[in-house]
């Protein structure tokens, strides 16, 4: 039962993402090359975001319960020009930002979250699906 449900959940999620990708493909051919995060796994990123509850501060599409109002909403994140209004929205900077934002922007309220390099890449990959 449990396995079945997990499986179902997985399938419905990947189905959702597939649809998301297809939709974005129609409009913008799969997102620009410069936003591809090498080694980033969208699904794992989604799970990390859910597990550490980024939603306590951010509103994040596709994450249950992510209704935060402390930081900026991450809706259409892939379209954003800046991260945190401070630095350009580029994959390498984003990976560093989600790991340790204060090292990029000393006045930010976003803490050093202590993510590993891999985790940060997965998270970044997920964020670039938001368009």
């Amino acid at each position, binding site marked *: 039962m449990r396995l079945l*449900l997990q499986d*179902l*959940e997985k399938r419905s999620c990947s189905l959702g993402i597939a649809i998301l990708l297809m939709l974005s493909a129609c409009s913008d051919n799969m997102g620009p090359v410069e936003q591809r995060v090498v080694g980033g796994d969208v699904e794992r990123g989604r799970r990390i975001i*859910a597990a550490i509850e980024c939603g306590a501060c951010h509103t994040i599409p596709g994450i*249950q*319960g992510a*209704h935060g109002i402390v930081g900026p909403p991450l809706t259409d994140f892939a379209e954003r020009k800046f991260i945190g209004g401070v630095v350009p929205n580029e994959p390498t900077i984003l990976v560093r930002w989600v790991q340790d934002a204060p090292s990029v922007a000393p006045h930010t309220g976003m803490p050093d979250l202590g993510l590993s390099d891999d985790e940060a890449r997965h998270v970044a990959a997920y964020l670039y699906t938001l368009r």
Partner: protein
Amino acid sequence: MPNPAPRPEGELEELKRIWEPPKGIHFLSAVNNNYVGVWYVGTAFLFFVLAGALALIMRTQLAQPELRLIGHELYNQLFTMHGTIMMFLFAVPVVEALSVFLLPNMQAARDLPFPRLSAYAFWAYFFGGLAFFCSLFFGLAPNGGWFMYPPLTSYIYSPGINADFWLLGIGFIEISAIAGAIEIIVGVLKTRAPGQSLDKLPVYSWAMLVFALMVIVAFPAIIAATLLLELERAFHWPFFIAEKGGDPLLWQHLFWFFGHPEVYVIFLPAAGMVSMIVPAMAQTPLVGYRLVVLAVIGTGFLSFGLWVHHMFTTGLPQLSLSFFSAASMAVSIPSGIQVFAWIATIASGKVQNKTPTYFILGFLFIFVIGGLTGVMVAMVPFDWQAHDTYFIVAHFHYVLIGGMVFPMFAAFYYWAPTASQRPLSETLGKWAFWLIFIGVNVTFFTMHITGLMGMPRRTYTYIAEMGWGPFNLISTFGAYTIGAGVLVFLIDLAKNFRPYQGDLGNLWNAGTLEWLPSGNYQTRSIPVITSREPLWDQPNLSDDVEAGRYYLPGAQTGGRETIVTSPIDARPQYVLQIPGPSWRTVFAAFFTAAFFIGLTIKLYTPAFVCGVLAVVFVIWWLWDSDPGPAEVGEIEIGGGLKLPTYTTGPMNHSWWAMIILMIVAGMVFGCIVFSYFFLWTISPRTWPLSAAALPAIWWPIGAAALFVASSLLVWLAGRKLSLVPERSAWPTRIALVLAVPLFIGGIALEVLGQLETGLRPSESGYGAVVYTLASYQGFLVAVLAIMGLYTVVRSLAGCLNRVRRSTFDNTQLFWHYGVAQGLVALLIIHAFPRLLG
């Protein structure tokens, strides 16, 4: 045949004219059961739909974890309102409403004995219920859950007026339910077809009798409880505040002493309907009639011994838990008897493939599951896990939807032809059935699992990690399926239901009296019954009734009338003159509702004005209700049987109503007395430690003397009334007028004596309950003062003499009761602490 046919020219026209409902806008002032019954059912069903819509909003919020469609504030109001409306504004009213419509039909009475009382009950419920519902639109709806546990609902943690809406609204609507119950008891016992003795009484009438008796005993508990909580909220009388010698569990005992029987109050009428529909659909008499009746009565008794099973997790001693556990299981036996009686009946006949059958079978399926999970939660250890989870939500929806909503739909499809020219559609009916049946099982079966997975009820959201998401989504899907089914039913209703234009006749070839040809006056003549299914066993019955060959084929008093019969063997006793249409009851109900709403929203002056107006309209309505003997004298109803048109004493229908009202008053009193002793066991330290702390003994002795003196005066007034009109009526009037200040003086002495000791109601649970006993006595005194003065006015108007004396007799009965209750209260307040000390 008692009467020869053909009947004289114009007799039928006269009957029709007398029973004709008022025209135009005035038709709202109709009071007879065919009209009020349909409005009543319709309003109750409206609340079913509204509360169902609230449930859909909740189910949408819970479809996914951590959704934010609605916030906790609205959600908490929604679940409170959903439960409250379903229980108090739908379930109880709809079964009363159906009986207002059905009972006179089934017992071949022209109307219920107190048509204006049922009109008042309906309108009070209509105005009060709608105002209560509208509190949602202002964010003022109660949010403490339908069982309103203090201290959460008291003034500290619920400072707004939301909780007051519940307490005043529900307390008030329960008064309407009790009014309906009085009507039903007297109706079942006193207005039956001649020969319809108790052993030939339809099971439905039996069920309604037990229902109404349960209402009489159980509902005063909720009235007392809401009274205490409102006193705590408004004046800080600490009944439920532990630091001041109150106890939150007092509420739970009072609430569930009402709340558990409530479930059977809802189920029994539905079971009664099933016992009528199954034989008709199977075309064979009910198997095990006596067993079923015994089961109905047994359920009524047992249901009062179970209330603690809602309190298994409060930490009560194991021994008492075991007792209530056993009782909770025992109550499933009468239900089992009925289930197998219905199966046996189905087996002995051949069921017709019709919509009512579908709903009956759906009822069996769902109700049996609900009953089985009921046995589970009666097991104390299992309840420790299941209590307050979605397992319980699933369980009671199975019981209530299975046990009551499905029979109700069966009843709608089955009895619609007695009210409408067109039957409801078989096609749409079956669609509605399948949608609702599948929807209910999808929604609520899933909830058993959600509950076992640990999801508590009354939560506006849940975190994703718990894994409850998919199950909740399934439940939400099911809930919308139920909604679709109800929608199909509403379409059917809109397309086919046409009341007040005559009826369709005996569509199902059923055997009971509601299928006789009828008009607004019910049957042309009132048949003599020799069987439980007279239409099957008495050949030509319909034709003879319609031809006027039976009793009372016309309207000999020149007004509305029906035959009153003896309670056991239904021998005709007298012809009751029934009041007709009146706006007074509508206004009385409107102002009563406005009074309570005004109190809730703290508009005290308008509330007071409305309260006075309500009393004025009630008195005005009552003015017609003691008409005295009709001018024509004794009436021959047929077959040489002559009946009086007026009686007094135990034969009189209003005497019965007064006795029942006294039981209600006594139950409220009993609940307050229970509170007194309960709080004493919890915190004896707040009780007076010695006689010195109590008022001096002369205070209660003085009060008792005044009480007794007032009773003696009323008794004297009665003696003197026996000589009116031959002798002067003044001794009666003077004695009555003097009795009023004596009674008031008695209660004033009691209050003054308590004030003298320095005791204040807000300082302790003891003080609160002592002053509540005095206040309740004071309320009775006020009511009796009005009744006494009203009686004097009747006498001045020449409406009171040794024959026409029902008004006086009822006042006298209630007066003596009030004095007896006052004496018991004095004894408890003043003797019990002295005995201790």
